[in-house]
Each structure stands twice: as structure tokens, then as C-alpha cells.
């Protein structure tokens, strides 16, 4: 693939505010899909121009790694917290705002939630609003849906997403379909949330990824949070939504720390997040794999690639607008997900991209997913069921060579 840089020396405005350093020269580059080898220029890291041959190694990007602007904590706006605290903040703000919002799940009340997402809420709002249920997923999910039919806005917590398989009938038939089969009479504004994904040697039954099972249910929306910022925003959006929303959290991400704004904010449920803009390849990911991708991105940047990383966030429906714009820019797609290979989110996304953006693709869509195996207990084996950064680097290199 010929890489052609045209245009020299123009400063380009960067889309992300953090990685700006005015001292460096920024080039505006345009990628041409042409086979002709025309003269081109290479901008070196010290700003000198070189005309060179088609050698990948010489292409250096000056603004590769996004660096955060340094500023002292005291002057930084917002407050720092962990992801589960962000979820709790979002939940509490919504419960404060609307008396119809209630939580139900196992050990959410007195125990404070197995991942501390509902800590102290029962003391504040009482036992009926933060309801400790018996271990009966099918029934308490059904109960929440019945309550939602009358106008309440329950949040169902599955202690682990895998347990919600027991409630599949209620989620599929009653939650997703009631609005349709009643001709619009009933809305089911529930939020079903819980941690899923492969953890640290939790065993096969506690390491499930249910996104793939739920994605075909008509009438529900699915979102996956990955940072404290989007966790709080998506939680609030999910609670305010009139549709049933399944919010996928990840067991290993609960202790992520980030500084989030003090002001109230709500994120768009159907929007994807641009994590790192780039030019060479679009990497679509969500939840924990975002961090594996970012880790791989560091390596890739050192090797001279410029990946565009998008956290798709919205698993149903896909944000084909953001994804499409990215594909039109880079013409290569790599999907990195934690779902299984067969019938996962990646499989659907591959189909969607192929159908909609086929003309813009220069290479087949590559999808890196977890292996189609039950997650083993042994640590080394478990590592190899999920996609590792090294594999992402190899895949990008193969796609972009």
C-alpha cells in the first residue's frame, strides 16, 4: 500500500485537546487510494522534510502518542474516583432526581452490592427502594419488568451477568417485546446491569460474555462502559431512557481511577467514543479490550503506525455514523472484542461494516475475539482465551503491510 503525504507544514487542529504541543510541526496528511508512485515527502520528527522512497520505517508521526497536558491536581476541575464509585454517583443522582427509580438485586441493599456499586444507598433510600432480593433471577427480573409496566423505573442488578441467563425468558419476551406486542401501550424503562467478562481466574461459569446472547433481542438497547466517565454518563442515560437498556460492566474495570467533571452530564446511549484519532487503521473495541488496544497502540505508534481507536460503547444499535466516518478515512478495520468468535458482537459488527461500507474497505475486516472455549481456571490458559496486546499488534501489522 503506497503511503503518500501531500501538503507540507500546515498546522492542523487536533481533535483531542490533550496531545497538543505547539512546538512540533503538524502535517495535514491526506491518504490517497492510488497505485501510482508519485513523489512524496516525509516529515521527520525534527520537522525536516525528506523526499524518500516507499519505506514504511521512515514514516514518523509527530503527534503519535496522546500525552495528557500536565497540570497540578489542585487546579484540575472535577473529582477523582473509581469506576464503581462513578456508577454509584450516577445511580444516586438519578434516584435523587426521580422517586420512581429503584434498584433490585441480590445483596444490593444491606451488603452494599457485591461490587460496592450500591453502597450506602439502602441507608439513604430505604429497603423498598434498594431491594435485597432472594436468589431468584428469573422472578425478580420479571418482577422488575412488571413494576416497569406500571411506571416505575427499576434497575436490575445481576451479581454477575452470567446469572442473568436464568432470566433470559423475562428479558427476551417480556422486557424486549412487550412494547411491541401491546401496540405501544406499555413501556419498560428498566436498566439491567451487572459485571461480566473474563476476570482473574473466576472459572468458566463466572466469566461469561452475554452481549452475544442478548444482541438479537428486538426492543432492547445494549451499552458497555469502560471508563469512570462513560460509566456514570451511560448509567444516567440508561436510567432516563424509556427503552430497556442492558448496561454491561466488566469485573476487572471496577477499580479504574479517573477524574470526572463535577457538573452533571449524561452521555448518548447510541454514540461511540473516539479514544484516539488516527489515520491508518480503525480499531473498534469495547469494555476491557479498550485497554489492551491502547496498550497495543503504544507499541504500534513506536513502530510507526497511526491507529484510530474507537470504543463503540453502544453494542445495540451500533453507532455506524462514527464507525462509518472512520472507515471512510482509514479503509481498514480491526475489531478487538472479548466476546466469543462465534456469533459475537464482532461477528455482527463485521457484517454491518461489510454491508454498509464495503466500497471503502481496502482489506477484509479482521475480528479478534476470544476463543470459543469455556474460560479455563489456569491463569496461563485464561490469558490465552482473551485477545492480548501482542496479537493486536500482529494483526495491525498484517492488515497494514
Amino acid at each position, binding site marked *: 500500500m503506497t503511503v503518500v503525504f501531500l501538503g507540507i507544514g500546515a498546522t492542523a487542529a487536533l481533535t483531542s485537546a490533550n496531545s497538543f504541543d505547539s512546538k512540533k510541526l503538524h502535517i495535514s496528511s491526506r491518504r490517497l487510494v492510488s497505485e501510482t508512485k508519485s513523489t512524496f515527502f516525509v516529515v521527520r520528527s525534527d520537522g525536516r522534510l525528506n523526499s524518500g522512497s516507499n519505506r514504511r520505517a521512515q514514516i514518523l508521526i509527530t503527534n503519535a502518542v496522546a500525552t495528557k497536558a500536565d497540570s497540578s491536581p489542585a487546579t484540575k476541575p472535577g473529582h477523582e474516583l473509581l469506576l464503581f464509585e462513578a456508577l454509584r454517583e450516577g445511580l444516586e443522582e438519578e434516584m435523587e432526581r426521580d422517586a420512581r427509580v429503584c434498584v433490585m438485586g441480590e445483596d444490593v441493599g444491606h451488603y452494599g452490592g457485591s461490587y460496592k456499586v450500591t453502597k450506602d444507598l439502602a441507608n439513604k433510600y430505604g429497603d*423498598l427502594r434498594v*431491594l435485597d432480593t432472594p436468589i431468584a433471577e428469573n*422472578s425478580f427480573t420479571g418482577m422488575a419488568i*412488571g413494576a416497569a409496566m406500571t*411506571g416505575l423505573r427499576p434497575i436490575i442488578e445481576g451479581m454477575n451477568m452470567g446469572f442473568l441467563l436464568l432470566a433470559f*425468558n423475562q428479558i427476551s419476551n417480556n422486557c424486549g417485546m*412487550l412494547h411491541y*406486542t401491546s*401496540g405501544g401501550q406499555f413501556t419498560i424503562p428498566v436498566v439491567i446491569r451487572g459485571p461480566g467478562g473474563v476476570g482473574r481466574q473466576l472459572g468458566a461459569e463466572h466469566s461469561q460474555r452475554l452481549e452475544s446472547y442478548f444482541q438479537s433481542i428486538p426492543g432492547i438497547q445494549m451499552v458497555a462502559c469502560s471508563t469512570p466517565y462513560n460509566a456514570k454518563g451511560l448509567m444516567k442515560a440508561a436510567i*432516563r431512557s424509556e427503552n430497556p437498556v442492558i448496561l454491561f460492566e466488566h469485573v476487572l474495570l471496577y477499580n479504574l481511577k479517573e477524574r470526572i467533571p463535577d457538573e452533571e452530564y449524561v452521555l448518548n446511549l447510541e454514540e461511540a467514543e473516539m479514544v484516539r484519532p488516527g489515520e491508518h487503521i480503525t480499531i473498534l473495541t469495547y469494555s476491557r479490550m479498550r485497554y489492551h488496544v491502547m496498550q497495543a497502540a503504544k507499541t504500534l505508534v513506536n513502530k510507526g503506525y497511526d491507529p484510530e481507536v474507537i470504543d463503540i460503547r453502544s453494542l445495540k444499535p451500533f453507532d455506524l455514523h462514527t464507525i462509518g466516518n472512520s472507515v471512510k478515512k482509514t479503509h481498514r478495520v480491526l475489531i478487538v472484542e472479548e466476546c466469543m468468535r462465534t456469533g459475537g458482537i464482532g461477528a455482527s459488527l463485521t457484517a454491518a461494516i461489510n454491508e454498509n461500507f464495503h466500497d471503502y474497505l481496502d482489506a477484509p475486516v479482521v475480528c479478534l475475539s476470544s476463543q470459543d472455549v469455556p474460560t479455563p481456571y489456569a491463569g496461563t490458559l485464561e490469558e490465552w482465551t482473551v485477545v492480548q496486546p501482542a496479537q493486536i499488534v500482529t494483526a495491525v501489522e498484517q492488515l497494514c503491510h
Partner: protein
Amino acid sequence: MALTHRSTNLLKPLSAAVPFTSSLRRLFSTDDATAITVETSVPFTGHKCDPPPRTIDTTPKELMTFFRDMATMRRMEIAADSLYKAKLIRGFCHLYDGQEAVAVGMEAAITKKDCIITAYRDHCIFLGRGGTLVEAFTELMGRRDGCSRGKGGSMHFYKKESGFYGGHGIVGAQVPLGIGLAFAQKYSKEEHVAFALYGDGAANQGQLFEALNMAALWDLPAILVCENNHYGMGTAEWRAAKSPAYYKRGDYVPGLKVDGMDAFAVKQACKFAKEHALKNGPIILEMDTYRYHGHSMSDPGSTYRTRDEISGVRQERDPLERIRKLILSHDIATEKELKDIEKEIRKEVDEAIAQAKESPMPDPSELFTNVYVKGFGVQSFGADRKEVRAILP
């Protein structure tokens, strides 16, 4: 409900054309004041509770209402049978004839603010809750003017304004929903109850016991009503349940066994249950009832039970006949008047079917409406920029 008003209006012109002796009866038929005492066919059997008394007071008006409502329900189900055989109704069609007393008796004991949720045998309960014949038939035929816009079908009748929550196809799944209705009622501190109806087949579902446990734990105003028609599709109750005493299945939850073919017994039981549920939490009612049709229209209904059994129940326990006998024995109306009412209802049902047939099929665009709720009303923005980025459509 819609049916009652018609009965008082239409009886007047009828009796005007008839000799003067019946004008005396006209007073009785709309009479709300005279108390008539009836006794239920069998006494109630209680489990962990004191059953209510067997004697119930009623009025001529109520008797006539019961008769009219049950006759309409009966006629509707039989008409649905013919429509199904004429291939105007497709898919599954589960008919309720024989069980009308449960729908009518329950309705008489409660208000529209109380919720009812049932399974797929829901046509008559829909009617009882205020649904019209036209809405029912158009929905059965899949037309646009149906109660669920033609998108639900026989098993998905709903009427939110009157507290009828459906209409569910999966056996037993409606019971946790019913407990949820009760939960919402308790949460909002309303003095209303939720009736969750299920069959003897569904009584063996685990989610029932899970739901019952939760309802009892939190004293939810839920009343679980087992409409025991003795056959779970093709399987008799003694072949499916080790303990067919469904009213006792609640164990720590009180129960009441009721003759479901006697509308007054049902009414008494539901009144009792409502008072109980508001004070003490859940209660189970077992309605001993019978369906004349098979499980659905694809089931002849005679492979697992004898025709003698069906005709025996029809002769001895038919709910409509019981009310007819009561009306005749108390001289509230003559045999001829009742027959006239039935003829009238037949005409009403035929007219409703004709009107339903004229309703158009849903527009193709309806395929995609109501999948999601439009107009979420959420403004989404990023606080770091303090500007509105998108307003969800």
C-alpha cells in the same frame, strides 16, 4: 364496564313490546336495591385461613349483568371458534368458554385500579376489563384497529387504562410480572391489589414459587389465582403434579379453594382475597373450573378426556346455566326474555365481527413502530464542553 350499560338500556325497549306482566319484571331487572341471598354451590376450603361465608347477597341487576356478560363472553368464544375454522384467525387461539364465571366474578369484586394479569387464555378477561368486542375481533384477525394494533394477536391482549396487563404466551412468566405489579402498588402506596392468573399447568413452574416467596417476604398485595381446569394442555393434573391441591401449594401463604363455575363464589373469594392481601400479603385462590374447548383450536380436546366428561360438566356445572336458573327461580326475567337477550348478544357479536372484518390490515410501516420508544427526551452532552451535543430522537 361497557357491557353493563347496554343491558340497562336495551332491556327497556324489549319489555315495552311485551304484555304488562313483564313491565313489573322490568323493575326487577334493573333493580339494584332488592337483596337476594344466594348460596355458593360448595363451601370454601381454606388453607391457613378462615374461609369466607357461603352466603352472598346480590341484586337482580347484578344477576342480569352476570348473565349478559357471561353470555357475551360465551358467544364471543364460539364465534372465534368459527372464525378460526374459516382461517380468519390464525396461529394459536385459546378459548375460555366454560371458565367465564372466573372472569365475571373477579370483575364484580374489584375496581379498574386493581390490576389483572393472565396468560394466553385472555379474551374474556379482556372483555371483563372493559375491552370491546370490536377491539377483540380486530386483534384476533390481525387488523390495524385491534387492541394491540394487530401486532400482538390472541395471546397479547392488553388494556393499560383498565389495569389489564395481558396476555402472555410463555407459561408462568406472567406471575413474576404480576408480583411486580403488586410491588409497584406497594411502592406507590396505593390501596390496590394485583391478580396474577395462571393455570394448573403453570402451577408447576419454579418461578411461581420464587415470586410467591418474594411476595410473602415483602407483604406485597398480590393474589395468585390458579384457574384449575384440570388439564395442562393434554396432561391431566394428577399426571403432572404430585400435589394437585394448588391452593395448598403456597405452604406458608394462605389459600382458598373456590368453585370456579359459580360466579358468586368467585366474587366472594376475590373480595375476601383483596381484603386479605391489602392487610397481610399474598394469598392463593384455586378456581376449580373447566374448559369445554380443547387447550387451543388445534387440540380437539377429546383425546385426553371423554366426551361424557365434557357434557357431564356442561349439564351440571355450566356457569351460564346456573345464573339462568337463579334468574328464573327469583322471577327476575322470563325464559323468553333471557333467550331474547342471547339473540341480541349474538347479533352484537356478529356485528362486531362484520365491523372487524372491514378494518384494514396494518400498514407495512407498522412493522418497525413500537420496537423502541421514540422521544426519549434525553439531552446528552459532555460536561467538559458544557454544550449540548445531541438530543436523542
